[in-house]
């Protein structure tokens, strides 16, 4: 039985790869290899996107390095395309593992014509209808009340879907977070709230964020169970999340799962010197030693099915090629032109917007830089 409200994070695999609890039978070497592959893919995606940033081909990126077990584990614990997800902006490992095509994700980051979000949003704020992966919003915690509403609709409609809502630890300070948690609790909505507690909100540490000893205990106030998990142990993440998802789906109401993890990189490219400014090298190193990818490699070693250096190198090369191809394909579609400014504002474009669009069309065709029209 998996217990809520534990004082320590639930774990299955120790940092050295030794199982601490009996390894559930479903975690065969093949399954673990699949999880490993998906985590490496997300990690290498991070590296490639940082390179694209340096090359000036995109303007913003928020890494998820270090958080892959939480996100990939979540993706593998729900019914993709059946359940609904209200993610936050650091969730590309989740999106990739849910099957959002690389081309779609890269196109969004580059804002090309192939971007399903049509170049409206900042890079890294993707959305995908096929996966029920609702477009990401920058505004912290603003997805939480809508996620509660999405789950209320699922209950109302009598589906067996559930809603997943993810957020960082910082998000739990916003009024919207409390409002959404309370709403879901009061209505008994099938919402699975997942806190990706990477312990920092830009430069603000969890200790300055809240006087609570943890995030998951806040669930108590909203009348739902709260679970505490080692977010760098993908076995633990999947064991707890699939158990909790089953409860939520079967009508027991919402639940909160706190995955304790760490973002080893900077908050985003706008925050390049995290170490210099607000956190210590020692802290980062301590968490690097708990790397979720390395942990699965050690577990596989322990099971006598190690990932060879060659296999790992192949995985890395394959991902780099996958991203490179997506970048070329996306860039070949060009940048959306001025028309995207006026489309999708309303269902029917009202007359004042049609006028403004006509004005811009005329300006774009007639006005060349530096010229003043008489």
């Amino acid at each position, binding site marked *: 039985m998996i217990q809520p409200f534990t004082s320590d994070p639930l774990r299955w695999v120790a940092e050295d790869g030794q199982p601490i609890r009996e390894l559930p039978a479903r975690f065969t070497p093949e399954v673990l290899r699949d999880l490993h592959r998906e985590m490496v893919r997300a990690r290498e995606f991070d590296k490639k996107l940082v390179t694209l940033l340096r090359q000036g081909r995109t*303007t*913003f990126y928020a890494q998820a390095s270090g958080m892959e077990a939480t996100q990939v584990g979540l993706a593998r614990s729900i019914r993709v395309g059946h359940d609904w997800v209200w993610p936050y902006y650091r969730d590309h490992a989740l999106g990739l593992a849910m099957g959002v095509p690389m081309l779609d994700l890269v196109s969004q980051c580059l*804002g090309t014509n192939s971007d399903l979000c049509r*170049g*409206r*949003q*900042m*890079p890294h*704020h993707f959305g995908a209808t096929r996966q029920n992966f609702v477009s990401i*919003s*920058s*505004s*912290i*915690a*603003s997805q939480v009340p809508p996620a509660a509403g999405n789950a209320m609709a699922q209950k109302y409609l009598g589906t067996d879907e559930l809603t997943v809502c993810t957020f960082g630890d*910082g*998000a739990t*300070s*916003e*009024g*919207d977070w409390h409002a959404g948690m309370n709403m879901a609790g009061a209505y008994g909505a099938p919402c699975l709230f997942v806190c990706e507690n990477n312990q920092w*909100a*830009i*430069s*603000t540490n969890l200790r*300055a*964020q*809240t006087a609570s000893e943890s995030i998951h205990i806040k669930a108590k106030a909203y009348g739902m169970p709260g679970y505490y998990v080692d977010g760098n142990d993908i076995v633990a993440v999947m064991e707890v999340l699939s158990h909790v998802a089953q409860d939520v789906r079967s009508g027991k109401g919402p639940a909160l799962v706190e995955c304790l993890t760490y973002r080893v990189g900077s908050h985003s490219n*706008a*925050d390049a010197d995290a170490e210099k*400014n*607000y956190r210590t090298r020692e802290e980062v190193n301590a968490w690097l030693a708990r790397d979720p990818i390395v942990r699965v490699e050690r577990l596989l070693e322990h099971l006598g099915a190690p990932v060879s250096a060659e296999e790992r190198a192949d995985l890395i090369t394959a991902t780099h090629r996958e991203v490179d191809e997506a970048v070329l394909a996306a860039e070949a579609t060009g*940048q*959306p*032109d*001025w028309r*995207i*400014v*006026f489309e999708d*504002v309303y269902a029917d474009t009202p007359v*004042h*917007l049609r006028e*403004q669009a006509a004005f*811009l069309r005329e*300006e*774009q065709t007639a*006005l060349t*830089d*530096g*010229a*003043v*029209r*008489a």
Partner: protein
Amino acid sequence: MTATQPKPAASSAGETRVLTLIQAITEAMAEELARDERVVVFGEDVGARGGVFLATAGLQEQFGQKRVFDTPLSEASIVGAAVGMAVRGLRPIAEIQFADYMGPGFDQIISQAAKIRYRSGGQFTAPLVIRTPSGGGVKGGHHHSQSPESYFAHTPGLKVVMPSTPYDAKGLLKAAVRGGDPVIYFEPKRLYRAAKGEVPAGDYTVEIGQGAVRREGSDLTIIGYGGVMPDAEKAAQALAAEGVHAEVIDLRSLVPWDRDLVLTSVSKTGRAVLVSEAPRTSNFMGEVAYVIQEQLFDQLLAPVMQVAGFDTPYPYVQDKVYLPGANRIAAACVRVLNY
């Protein structure tokens, strides 16, 4: 420079330096923290990190964690706490990380900060400053580029300020800290480092409610504020090359705004072009246009024209097209001149 443009006043040491807009803002906070122990500076990441744009860089080191501190990630808490502190006698300078994120703090701003003086018959007041980077031009998409000033200009009880020069940034921020009212102080983020200018090393204030003439002219008046000012001046320069003399006015404050300055200028030129990057509908400049036509109906030689943002969310890829640049402003001027 004209009579209405305050000269960089000689400070005690008589020294002026060239600063960027953001340096002037930091300096204003440092001097106010040093001047008055009741001044406190707080918000998300303003402490060790020094703010995401580094506006508060070094302040925590200099003044300690009691005076300059990080808050939980909650704009409602930041603004609401600022109100409570101000009521209890402190002088809070709260930072909202981006103007786009005033949303979660909106109720505290309009229900508490703006109304406590009125609803208590003046028994309780909340003199505080909310600083926030606003406007576009930095490839931020709609959650990092909006210009929400009209929401606040629409709410009685708030003062609304937006500097475009380092000199004004320092003087207006000091005036805001020392005044008796809640002030929403918008910082046009694309000018943080792009706008450079002379700033006195010592103490001075710029009165909230006074505009400034940036350039004198007789043929028409261009009126703007904040991030559009460099483009307004560029447009005026381009027109000058064609023999047209535009007067350029920087409002500097929206509430209250300098009606006298605007009306004096437009009654001289007979033509007005109003520039802002906020969406056109319910744009604050609509109010300025209304007052011009009400007061100067007989003297206008052409309809008042507005150059504004489009009535769409701020786009990411087409961010340059969205902003009213010098060309769009100049084209509007030409239309008004040819009316």
